[in-house]
C-alpha cells in the first residue's frame, strides 16, 4: 500500500472481477510483449516523507543564499506574505484551466482583474491572460507584428536584454522571420539609426525601457516614424517600472510585453515567472493566448469567461496565432494579489525606494574612483558602470561577504568588456550597500 494509491487488495480483486479478467496485466494484452518493460525502473526505492525532506535539505544546503545586487530581468523585491497564503489555496492551486466557467469563476475573475491591472500599467487597451515569461512574450509580440503588418523582418534594439534576444532569435530561426539590430547611441536606442533602417520590409521594432543597462530611454518620434512606415512598435518593460515610468501607451507603442517577476515573485532560480502581453483593441484578434471577458449568466449575474477562442490552437489547429495552450495562471494570481496589496501608492513607493537605494550605491561607487559612468543617463533601479578591476575578482571578493552583485556584461559582447551592472531594490539596507562598497574599495 502507498499513501497516494487508495486501492486495497479487495478493491483490485473486485474491479478485476467486474472486468472479467484475472490480472491488471491482461488489460495491457494489446501491447506487444517486445515493447513492455521487463524490469523495474533503475531508480531509488520509495522514500518516507521524512527521508524526502532530509534529501531536499541536503540539496538545499549545497546552495548559498546571497544578498542580491543583480537584476538583468530577475529582481529581488519584497514578497508580501498574503501572496503565498492566497496562492496556496487549493481551489486556485489544484484546479485546471477554467473550461467550465460555472465552477471556475475564482480563476476567471482574478484573470480579469490581472488583465485590468496590466491594461492600466501599460496604458494599452487589452492584456491577455499571460504568457510563459518575458522572453517568450517578446517572441510572440514579434510574431504579432509580422502578422499585423504582413511583413517578415523585425528590428531589434541592441539595448534589449541579451537573454531575451537569444530567445527571440531561436523563435525567428525556426519560423523563418528575419531581423536586424538598431544600434545603441551612448547606451540608448539610436533613433537615427532606426530611421535609416526602416523600410518596406520592416514589420516592427522591439525596444526596451528601462533598457538592459538600466537606462531610461526616450522614444520621442519613434512611434511616429514606425507608424508612418506602417510598422508596429513593441515596448518591452519590467512591469513594476511601469508603475512610475512613461507607459507604452503614452509612447504610442502598439504592443507591450515583458516579465511580471518583479510583482512579488521569488527569484526562484529564474522560474516560474510570467510574461505579460498587451495591445490595442485594433489588434486584439492577433493577440495569442487566453483572453478573459465579462459576460452574464442566464440569470443576468455578472460572470467571466474565456473568449475570442477562435484565435486559439484547439479551434484553429495549424492556422492558430500561436501554439500556446495554457497561461501561467497561478503567477497571474501572484501578480494580481501583489498589485492589490501594493495598490496605487505601493507601486510608486517601491519604485521610489529602489530608485533612492540604487542612486546611493551609484554615488558611492563613483566615489571610490574605481568605477565610471560612460553613459550619464537617468536610471531607475539598475545601472551599468565601467571598471578596470577584474570582474572575477569583484565576484569572488563579494562572495566572501555573502553578496552576489555586479553582473559582468563582458560575456555578452566584446564592446561591453569592462561594463558591470548593479540592481538595487527596496529590500537592500544601507548597511548592505555600505558593505558592498567597502569590499570594492579595497580592490585594485
Amino acid at each position: 500500500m502507498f499513501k497516494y494509491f487508495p486501492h486495497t487488495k479487495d478493491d483490485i480483486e473486485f474491479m478485476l472481477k467486474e472486468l472479467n479478467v484475472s490480472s491488471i496485466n491482461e488489460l495491457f494484452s494489446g501491447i506487444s510483449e517486445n515493447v513492455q518493460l521487463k524490469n523495474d525502473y533503475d531508480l531509488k526505492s520509495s522514500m518516507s516523507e521524512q527521508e524526502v525532506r532530509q534529501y531536499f535539505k541536503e540539496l538545499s544546503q549545497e546552495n548559498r543564499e546571497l544578498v542580491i545586487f543583480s537584476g538583468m530581468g530577475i529582481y529581488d523585491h519584497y514578497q508580501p506574505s498574503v501572496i503565498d497564503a492566497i496562492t496556496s489555496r487549493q481551489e486556485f492551486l489544484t484546479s485546471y484551466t477554467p473550461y467550465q466557467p460555472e465552477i471556475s469563476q475564482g480563476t476567471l475573475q482574478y484573470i480579469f482583474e490581472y488583465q485590468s491591472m496590466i491594461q492600466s500599467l501599460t496604458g494599452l487597451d487589452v492584456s491577455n491572460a499571460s504568457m510563459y515569461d518575458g522572453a517568450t512574450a517578446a517572441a510572440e509580440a514579434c510574431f504579432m507584428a509580422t502578422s499585423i503588418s504582413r511583413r517578415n523582418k523585425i528590428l531589434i534594439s541592441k539595448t534589449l536584454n541579451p537573454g531575451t534576444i537569444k530567445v527571440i532569435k531561436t523563435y525567428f530561426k525556426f519560423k523563418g522571420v528575419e531581423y536586424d539590430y538598431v544600434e545603441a547611441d551612448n547606451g540608448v536606442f539610436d533613433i537615427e539609426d532606426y530611421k535609416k533602417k526602416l523600410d518596406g520590409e520592416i514589420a516592427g521594432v522591439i525596444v526596451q525601457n528601462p533598457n538592459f543597462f538600466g537606462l531610461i530611454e526616450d522614444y520621442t518620434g519613434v512611434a511616429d516614424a514606425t507608424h508612418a512606415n506602417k510598422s508596429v512598435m513593441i515596448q518591452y518593460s519590467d512591469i513594476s517600472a511601469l508603475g512610475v515610468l512613461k507607459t507604452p501607451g503614452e509612447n504610442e507603442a502598439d504592443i507591450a510585453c515583458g516579465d511580471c517577476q518583479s510583482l512579488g515573485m521569488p527569484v526562484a532560480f529564474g522560474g516560474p515567472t510570467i510574461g505579460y502581453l498587451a495591445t490595442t483593441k485594433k489588434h486584439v484578434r492577433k493577440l495569442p493566448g487566453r483572453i478573459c471577458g465579462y459576460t452574464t449568466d442566464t440569470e443576468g449575474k455578472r460572470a467571466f469567461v474565456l473568449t475570442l477562442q477562435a484565435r486559439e490552437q484547439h479551434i484553429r489547429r495549424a492556422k492558430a496565432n500561436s501554439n500556446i495552450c495554457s497561461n501561467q495562471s497561478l503567477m497571474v494570481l501572484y501578480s494580481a494579489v501583489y498589485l492589490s496589496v501594493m495598490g496605487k501608492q505601493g507601486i510608486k513607493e517601491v519604485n521610489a525606494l529602489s530608485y533612492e537605494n540604487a542612486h546611493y550605491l551609484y554615488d558611492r561607487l563613483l566615489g571610490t574612483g574605481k568605477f565610471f559612468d560612460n553613459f550619464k543617463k537617468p536610471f531607475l533601479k539598475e545601472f551599468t558602470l565601467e571598471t578596470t578591476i577584474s570582474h572575477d575578482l569583484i565576484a569572488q571578493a563579494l562572495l566572501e561577504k555573502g553578496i552576489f552583485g555586479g553582473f559582468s556584461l563582458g560575456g555578452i559582447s566584446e564592446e561591453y568588456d569592462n561594463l558591470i551592472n548593479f540592481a538595487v531594490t527596496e529590500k537592500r539596507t544601507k548597511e548592505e550597500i555600505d558593505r558592498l562598497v567597502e569590499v570594492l574599495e579595497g580592490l585594485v
Partner: protein
Amino acid sequence: MMYNKLIFEISQPGRVGYSLPKRQFTKYDIKDLGNHLRQTDALLPEVSELDCVRHFTNISKKNFGVENGFYPLGSCTMKYNPKINEELVKTMSFAKLHPYQPISTVQGALRAYYELQNALSEISGLEEFSLNPFAGAHGELVGLMVMKEYHMARGDFKRTKVIVPDSAHGTNPASITVCGMEAVEIVSNDQGMVDIEALKAVLNDEIAGMMLTNPNTLGIFEKDIVEITKLVHEAGGLMYYDGANLNALLGKVRPGDMGFDIMHINLHKTFSTPHGGGGPGSGPVGVKDFLIDYLPNPRVKKLEDYYYVANVGDAIGQISGYFGNFLVALRAYSYILNLGKENLMQVGPLATLNANYVRQALKNDYYLPIEGYCMHEVVFDGLKDNPHEIRTLDVAKRLLDYGMHAPTIYFPLLFHQSIMIEPTETESLQTINDFIDVMKKIAKEAKEDPDTLRNAPLSTPITRTDEVFAAKEMIFSYKDYLEYINSKG
C-alpha cells in the same frame, strides 16, 4: 448571497495593504526623472490586507479544485498534488537563488535539475532531457525545433513536413506551424488508430517526422506502434512522442523502447505538480543520444562531483531566459522520490484499471464507439438511449450539480459527442462508484427530465454563460467594464 465584487469595487482612496522599509536616503527623489514619469497613476486598487485576503478567499470558493472532488478531466491527468512537494519548494533555499548567481553557490539546485533529468531518462527510455521548456505546448515546439535542426544539420533541407493523426491535440499542428514546418494530417482507422496504409501514402523524402500521442487521444494504445516507428524511420523521419498521456504507460512501456526519438513530458500531469488554474506547468524535452547536442541552452552538466552550466554550440538556441519553471520541476522530483521505483511501476496499471472499470460500468448507458480495453482514459460518444437528444454538454453541466468536475467534452474531434473520462490512480473505488452512480442517474434524467439537464447547472455559483455577448462586447478590463456600464446609463 454569494460574494460578487471586483477588487476595484472594494477600493477606498488612501487605504494600503503593504509595508515597505522606511526611506534611507532622502537626498534622492524619483521625481527628478521628470518627463520620464507617467502622467497619471495606474488604476490599481487601494485595499487593506484583510480586505485583500477576504476578497481572494471569497472568490476562491467559486472554484473547483482536485481537493473539492472528483476531477475526471480526460487528457489532463488531474491526480492528487502532494502537500510535501509544496512544502519543500517553499521552505528551502531554492526560491531564493538568482539564476545568475555563481555556479559554486547553486550546486544543490543544479544537482536536483541534473538528477531529475536522469530520472526522466530512465522512465522514458530516452538518453537525455532538458527541463527548460515551460509547458507541454512549449515542449512540443522545442522538440520540433530539435527535429528540424537535426535535418538541417545534415543538409537535408527538403524535410519540412510533419505527420499528425487527425485525433491529435490542437497544439500538435499549431506547434508545427510555429516551428516553420507544415502539418500533414492523416485519418484514423475505424478503431481510432493510425491507419498504416494512410501513413505509407504520405511518407516521402519531405517528411521530417511524425508526432504521436500513445495511448492516443481516444485512450487506446497504438498496437502497430513498432511498425509505425519503423516505417517513419525507414523514410528518414524522426518519431516525436507527445507525453500528454504518459501516465498510462508508467510501469508498462517506455517511449524510447517503442522507437520514439524525441518527446516531452507534462510534469503537471504525470508527475503531480499542480495545474495552478492553467499553469505554470513544465514540459521537459528528452531525446535519443544522436540528438543530445541539439537540446536547448543552457544545459546542466556534471564533471565528477561538480555541476556546471554549459552552452552547446550545436544547440537549437535558447528557448527560455533561464532554467524553465525550475520550482515546478523540483516538485516533480519530490514526487518521484516519494513514490520510488516500486510505486512508479504501479501508476499506469492502477490508472488503467480505474478507466476500464468506468468503461465497463457505463457502456450500457453511454455509447462506446470503440470496443476493447482502454488505457488510462475512456471515451464515450454521448448517451446511448437518448430520445430527447440531450447533448454531451448537458451531461457535463449536470455533473457540476452533483459536485463533480466535468470530463473533457467534444474532444477528440473524431466523434460528435465525445466524453473523455480519466480517473487517475489516486482515485478510490468509492469515488469512482459515486461517479458511476451519478452518470447513470444523469442518463435516467435524460429520458425522464430532459429540461433539468438542458438548464443545468443550477447549484453552482453562476449558471450557463452568454459566450456570444463576451465575444461581441469585448470587455477585457475594469476600464472597459466601467465604460460599458456607463454607456448603458
